């Protein structure tokens, strides 16, 4: 990605969780453009419109949950880079997320080191 602006879509129904994640990302990435989505449907629509470099998605969300949103995004863009961020880190949810096409999983409460590693390994 080099010095170019990184476009990051943050999908979470909690305004606080979005802020906490964005604040954490800003510790490790300098030039970022954030796109906020408050539910799974918004995340799908904004993905198609904005084509972000990476997506962070919560699972439990109103209107459309995170797993369904991943499936839809991947159908439209199989190369989409999506990381799930959820407190529901059960094996079943993990498997469902990966099968839907998510590339990584971060357990809430988020740990800055984990976010740092995710950014480092996916945004080269």
């Amino acid at each position, binding site marked *: 990605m080099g010095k170019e602006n990184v476009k990051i879509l943050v999908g979470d129904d909690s305004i606080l969780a979005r802020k906490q994640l964005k604040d954490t990302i800003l510790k490790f990435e300098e030039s970022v453009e954030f796109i906020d989505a408050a539910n799974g449907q918004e995340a799908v629509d904004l993905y198609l419109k904005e084509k972000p470099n990476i997506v962070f998605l919560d699972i439990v969300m109103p209107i459309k949950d995170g797993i369904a949103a991943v499936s839809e995004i991947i159908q439209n863009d199989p190369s989409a880079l999506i990381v799930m961020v959820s*407190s529901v880190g059960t094996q079943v949810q993990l498997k469902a997320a990966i099968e839907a096409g998510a590339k990584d999983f971060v357990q809430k409460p988020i740990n800055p080191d984990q976010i740092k590693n995710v950014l480092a390994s996916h945004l080269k």
Partner: protein
Amino acid sequence: MFAQFFGSYLLSKNAVSPEQLTAAITKLADTHIKLGTLAMHKGYMTASEVDEVCFLQTREDKRFGEIALERNYLFEDQLEDLLKSQNPDYLLLGQTLVDSGVISNTDLETLMVGYQAENKLEEAPSEDANQEETQTLIMNFFEAADEQLSDEALMYMNLIFNNLVRFIGEDFTPLAPVACTSYDTNYCVTQSISGPINVTSGIDMEEDVAIAFASRYAKMEFHVFDEYVKASLEDFLNLHNGLFSVNMSNAYSTEVALDPPMHNDVPTYKMDKGSFVIPVIYPFGTIYLILAM
């Protein structure tokens, strides 16, 4: 966890009033455990011996241990043991209540013995009590209020008290659970869990309490009741229920589904039989845990 439930034990025995307890809880952070309290807890000294040494300390410029040794109230090896032993957290609460004149050392001695016997505590439970010990504690807490919990509900309550310690702070005391089928709400957030077990849980509090609760949860300073404060309440509940679903999956291979948390915008919340509300006192105010079966 033992300090929190020692507080509710004291309330259930009418040894203190909620106001006295809250005042003692707010002082905890600045209090250090005294040798006399520890000696009494270990059964090395009686309450009257401790009182006597404390009195003598006002006459002689000597340390507690020195006087206790001189009077043969303590042996050298006992003193050494006390100086290096780990203190259960509820002792500090008891001592704070003695220092504030709410109860006497003699009361504390009796109450400690009763509390330990009721909860089958080892002589000196460490501060990192294991899951099993806190489960017994919570079971007794509910039994004292004539509430029987299923294994899952017990795990649920154990986890929520642990999450309060972890994300909000350990300076709380839960009051006895109140069985009810309707509840008048303040600002109430609920979340439904479905699957092999179906539960709706919630947290409810007044707006100014919510501001303080959210400030602790988010580690930010909030001053007005805004969307971040509201989101903090939802996030705490959602985080807790998410961790519960992980526990259910690991312990029982049971998968539960979570609905998104929501603001429950009704003045009176109706619940089925078997539901209950637990008031939890923090220095900044009271929060209400709701478990609707």
